């Protein structure tokens, strides 16, 4: 059974042009998928559909084998967490502890269990020393980790990162990417929405959206061999591939650098 199964989904705001058209996408458990696309390509809308913040105009979405409907949405949303772009927009509590608790409070988790879970997940994201801190005093990367702890505490199987690193400084960003890798290692399904190609290199599979439709969907290593497809989708290439494209394929010495650069992007 697939973790996410999107069939023939279209979406538009009332009476406006289609934001998403004929989206078909299946994601298996434990996959790390990067959804790429230019501004306005529909990638954030897709994320909102997955977490039930928006409803498709037509088509169906199933999470872990259960169709999203008004009746199932409440239960299914527990399986899927989303971390947004601006860490400041996802805080409600006056302390890190409150914030991690918030999602669980909504699920009526008993108090004893909640306290244990707060401790457990705060340790997991490396924030257990900062439980009493006020969220506004944390760094961007720390804020994103608190948000992740709150989501993990609801025992989600899928994590969506909607441009979650775009407002972070370089260090916080590296921290967060490393942390996402550990979640991936634990078998959590990762959907990363981004237009940053360096970041997309961490994923196993790349889905490229262009003007609301799926333009490419393939394994990272396969798709990176078709650089023109990224340009057509108004995306950049990762720096290593930009450099590689300017080196000679026949000259032995340049070819050696080319081969290494290929290894460099594949290895991430």
């Amino acid at each position, binding site marked *: 059974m697939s973790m996410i199964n999107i069939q023939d989904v279209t979406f538009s705001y009332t009476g406006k042009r289609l934001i998403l058209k004929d989206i078909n996408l299946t994601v298996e458990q434990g996959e790390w998928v990067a959804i790429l696309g*230019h*501004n306005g390509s529909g990638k954030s809308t897709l994320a909102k559909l997955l977490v039930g913040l928006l409803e498709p105009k037509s088509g169906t979405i199933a999470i872990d084998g259960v169709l999203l409907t008004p009746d199932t949405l409440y239960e299914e949303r527990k399986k899927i967490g989303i971390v947004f772009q601006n860490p400041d927009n996802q805080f409600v509590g006056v302390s890190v502890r409150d914030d991690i608790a918030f999602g669980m409070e909504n699920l009526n988790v008993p108090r004893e269990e909640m306290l244990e879970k707060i401790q457990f997940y705060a340790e997991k994201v490396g924030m257990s020393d900062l439980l009493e801190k006020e969220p506004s005093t944390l*760094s961007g990367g720390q804020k994103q980790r608190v948000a992740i702890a709150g989501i993990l505490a609801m025992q989600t199987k899928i994590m969506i990162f909607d441009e979650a690193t775009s407002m972070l*400084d*370089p260090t916080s960003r590296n921290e967060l990417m490393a942390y996402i890798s550990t979640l991936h290692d634990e078998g959590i399904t990762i959907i990363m929405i981004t*237009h940053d190609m360096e970041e997309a290199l961490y994923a196993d599979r790349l889905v490229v959206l262009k003007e609301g439709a799926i333009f490419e969907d393939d394994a990272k290593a396969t798709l990176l061999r078709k650089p023109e497809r990224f340009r057509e989708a108004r995306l950049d290439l990762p720096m290593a591939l*930009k*450099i590689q494209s300017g080196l000679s394929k026949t000259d032995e010495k340049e070819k050696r650098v080319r081969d*290494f650069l290929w290894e*460099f992007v594949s290895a991430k």
Partner: protein
Amino acid sequence: MGIRFREVSYHYPQNHLQFHQAIEKISFQVSAKGEFIALVGHTGSGKSTLAQHMNALIFPTEGSVEIFGHSVTRKRNRKIRYNDLRKHVGLVFQFPEYQLFEETVEKDIIFGPLNYKVPLDEAKTIALKTLAQVGLDESYLNRNPFNLSGGEKKRVSIAGILALDPDILVLDEPTSGLDPEGKRVLMDLFQSIQFETDKTIVIITHDMDLVYQYTSRVLVMNQGKLVFDGTPEKLFRTAPLTEYQLSMPETIKVLQAINERLGLSIDIYQKTAEAAIQAIKEAVRQ
């Protein structure tokens, strides 16, 4: 003229809600013409607090900020018309939503000029001109700013500040959230504004690639202190980037990896992919 910070500190009264990071004894100078400056540093390092001192949006707790000949200190000076200072230094916020509030793009752009007693006709001409400067045509004049895309909103908010014709333009993370194409278009726009008008431009950013490619001077904030003021070249060659929680631009990272792995000695300090390619070609011929 320009802006001169003299030992500027900004602190909070106890129990005050922290909207701004504290900054400590900051001294530097920005000239009124021809500079392209990047203000960088980790989240919470005090970049935005510093930027908001540049047009007297907040006042220093200690020290002074001289803005185009007027000294801004802790005490408000009745002789200074702070609004006039803001005409010299325009500040564009990170989130255009904080700045846009009118129901049409035109009304938004003319708001500033009208405030400074520019006649309506003239303000409308200015709106058309600055809209063109940011790469939007006149069909945008009657559109509602809130129905525009993120990139378009940013441009409109920039046009609104350009309409005041400031000498110095300060932009808080103008490219965050934009796709690669959007970033390039906006940075090229700043470059051309600077080229054509010789305005000084200050951008706050986390993007080291943009810093390296576009700017000529970098100010690094670290935990409320100004720890570096120099060229991007010098920053990436000599500064303790890890300590500042910064990173190398992608070009340098990739070239470094090639050198390490293949034992080459490519000059790694290249700003663009094209320059990196040339450097590799030269190095392998040796």
